């Protein structure tokens, strides 16, 4: 198991080919980031426009290494009780009840308050112990003996406080629980951490400092064509080239939301379903809503469809 993991991560090329076999086409930067993350034990902060495969990368890496991918989806209001751990209150309450009933037995023979308290101390304190601990994603990731891939998704959606909560985890791979102490990850198999951000707000410098920073931009035509090929192999080469060219052209327009890779893939699937052999303006118009998600964008593009389609057809 461990050998296998190291093998996959031994060089940048092996990472690239490993990911490719899982239909994730990476570029050199992406592979380098994964490589460094593993060699330096550093988390990777992935930024980029939505739909370029940030989350997918973490999942693919987990898949490649055959490790569990523990995912923590961030949102406003996320706090430690949902991210790190929570006490099992019900059981704790029951425990106190039980304790109350057996109190007489424990204190048997004790005279005076001091002695009773001493006796109580002797009695092990399990109220705050791992027995009553409900681990949440972060803690779970640390406790995973075989190592795992921890995906902290859309970290920019969480609150500032939560970011500071992550710092200990990210720099030292440990978490402190006040009642119990510090829990550390298996030093030989630290979790591989990926954070993704959509840049809705600036991530704090403290967090950034601890991470490798990977920016995934929109892919160029070649890479995108490869990705479409990997994801939707049914698309004939000619159509693939056309639709990739079309999308690439579309990205140069002034749009509210430019189509990402995921939209390209969706579109490719749509075109296959419609048995399209080659792009034509009408077909494009009908399926525009797959790649553009705002009515005003669709209206802007509709006028240009003929021109764009011609361009895409000519590009062969």
């Amino acid at each position, binding site marked *: 198991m461990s050998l296998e993991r190291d093998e996959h991560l031994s060089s940048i090329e092996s990472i690239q080919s490993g990911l490719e076999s899982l239909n994730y086409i990476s570029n*050199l930067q992406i592979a*380098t980031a994964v490589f*460094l993350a593993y060699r*330096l034990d550093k988390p990777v902060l992935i930024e980029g426009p939505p739909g370029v495969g940030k989350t997918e990368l973490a999942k693919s890496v987990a898949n490649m290494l055959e490790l569990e991918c523990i995912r923590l989806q961030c949102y406003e209001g996320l*706090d430690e009780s949902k991210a790190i751990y929570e006490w099992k209150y019900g059981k704790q309450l029951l425990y106190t009840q039980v304790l109350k009933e057996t109190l007489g037995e424990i204190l048997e023979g004790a005279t005076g308050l001091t002695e009773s308290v001493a006796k109580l101390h002797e009695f092990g304190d399990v109220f705050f112990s791992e027995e009553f601990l409900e681990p949440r994603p972060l803690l779970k990731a640390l406790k995973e003996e075989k190592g795992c891939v921890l995906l902290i998704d859309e970290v920019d959606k969480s609150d500032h406080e939560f970011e500071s909560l992550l710092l200990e985890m990210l720099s030292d791979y440990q978490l402190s629980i006040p009642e119990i102490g510090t829990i550390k990850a298996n030093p030989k198999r630290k979790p591989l951490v990926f954070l993704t951000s959509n840049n809705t707000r600036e991530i704090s410098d403290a967090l950034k400092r601890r991470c490798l*920073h990977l*920016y995934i931009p929109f892919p160029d035509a070649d890479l995108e064509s490869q990705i479409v090929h990997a994801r939707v192999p049914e698309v004939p080469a000619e159509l693939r080239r056309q639709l990739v060219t079309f999308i690439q052209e579309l990205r140069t327009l002034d749009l509210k939301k430019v189509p990402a890779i995921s939209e390209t893939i969706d579109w490719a699937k749509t075109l296959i379903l419609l048995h399209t052999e080659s792009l034509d303006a009408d077909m494009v118009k009908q399926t525009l809503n797959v790649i553009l998600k705002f009515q005003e964008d669709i209206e802007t593009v509709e006028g240009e469809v003929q021109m764009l389609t011609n361009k895409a057809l000519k590009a062969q």
Partner: protein
Amino acid sequence: MEKTLVDFVKVLRTAEVKVSPAETLDAMTALKVVGYEDRVLFKNTLSMLLSKNPEEKETFESCFEKFFTFDDVMPANEDATSDSEPDDQFEDERSDSNASGQPGGKGSGQGGGQGNASGESTEEDDQDMPSPTSALGQLLLQGSRSDLMIKMAEAGRAVEVNQIVVFTQKGLYTRKIMDQMGLKALQDEITELQNDTGAGERRLAGKLKRARDQLRDQVRDYVEKQFFLHADEHGKQLREELLKKVKLSNLEKRNFKDVQEIVFKMAKKLVSIHSKRRKTYKRGHLDLRKTLRKNMQYDGVFFDLKWKAVKVDRPKVMCICDVSGSVSNYSRFLLMFLYSLAEIIPKVRSFAFSSDLGEVTQLFRNSNLEDAMAKTMRDYGNGSTDYGQMLLDFRRTCMDDVDNKTTIIILGDARNNYGDPKAEIVREMYEKAKRVIWLNPEPRSNWQVGDAEMKKYAPNCHQTEVCNSLTHLERVVSNLLKFTA
């Protein structure tokens, strides 16, 4: 290499990529893993560790290309240096003089061109040409171009070319680097050879001379690049520092663009500092865990409830700006500042007046600053200042909207042309609003001279400040955020 990396980090910092020492250390560890051989890998690694947002990545890109600029050497020579080096030595041993053809033979772009031509035609004669004795001469004629570049970089470091500040220093540094590389010995040798009678010596002298002139061009080029790398940003910083302190009314129009940039930068800083302010709010989900722990001390009886939801408290700001001639520039920048802060203070209402008060909130929100400012000036800018009228207008139109969360900022010199100051309205504001801040661009000593009414207004404000430069503005806004949040 570590020194080079540190230098590079320094360059990045001057280019406003924030690189912490810890990140530099990380980069060093990372480089131990990936090595220096593969340029692309090297660059990707550094980019990942040192630049942490898209803008920084862009800056990083250009800095990297400028800093590690062996492009005129590398592409042509990369293979040549690695695999012809041993070969090089062989030849040197075999026939010293033959080596003079080598710089050209290695196909170095600019430098070796003519050396090559002459080298080949005189191949036979070279046999009787002596080899140069000075270190630099040997390097010029025999060493590879990358050796030369390395030597140049070393010399550059020795004379601290990265300290270059203004472009007039270019000549000085070129000279210094040449000296450091051993120009003097070379010169002496050339003179000596020229005085010699032997044909071989003469030819060598000519060759050395040509090589020296080429070298000078290269060094000049190198210094130029260093200048762009180090001084350009440095100069910009100096200018910014200066602009921050200069009186806003003295700013010239051509500086406005720079100032605007600075304002945005300052605003961004303030946003990142203050956007974190939140306070717990008594509503929403019950925080069972906190409640349990808190109430443990009361024997588990729940009477101190804790709530989960937090509420972000955004300040409400009303900003009243005097836009009459003397103060308009200050108002411009205050408004610029406030609107750059839209992210953390979304509820800014702004008013402009010289005599009559008018709300310009929508104007500033919808059009860009220049247009909005121009329109404001046109609509409200003329007429003599009348603070009394302004205050009356304010009371009539929006005193009702003032509540205990509102901060009112008044920017003006309080010169009322001897009219009725109506200070009681300011008093009313004082009682209703959370804070009333008066910003006055004039120095404190002038606050009571002539028709200035600060004496009557000041006691009715929570805070009065002199405010006539960007630094002042920043301080005021920062304070504002601290108190209101």
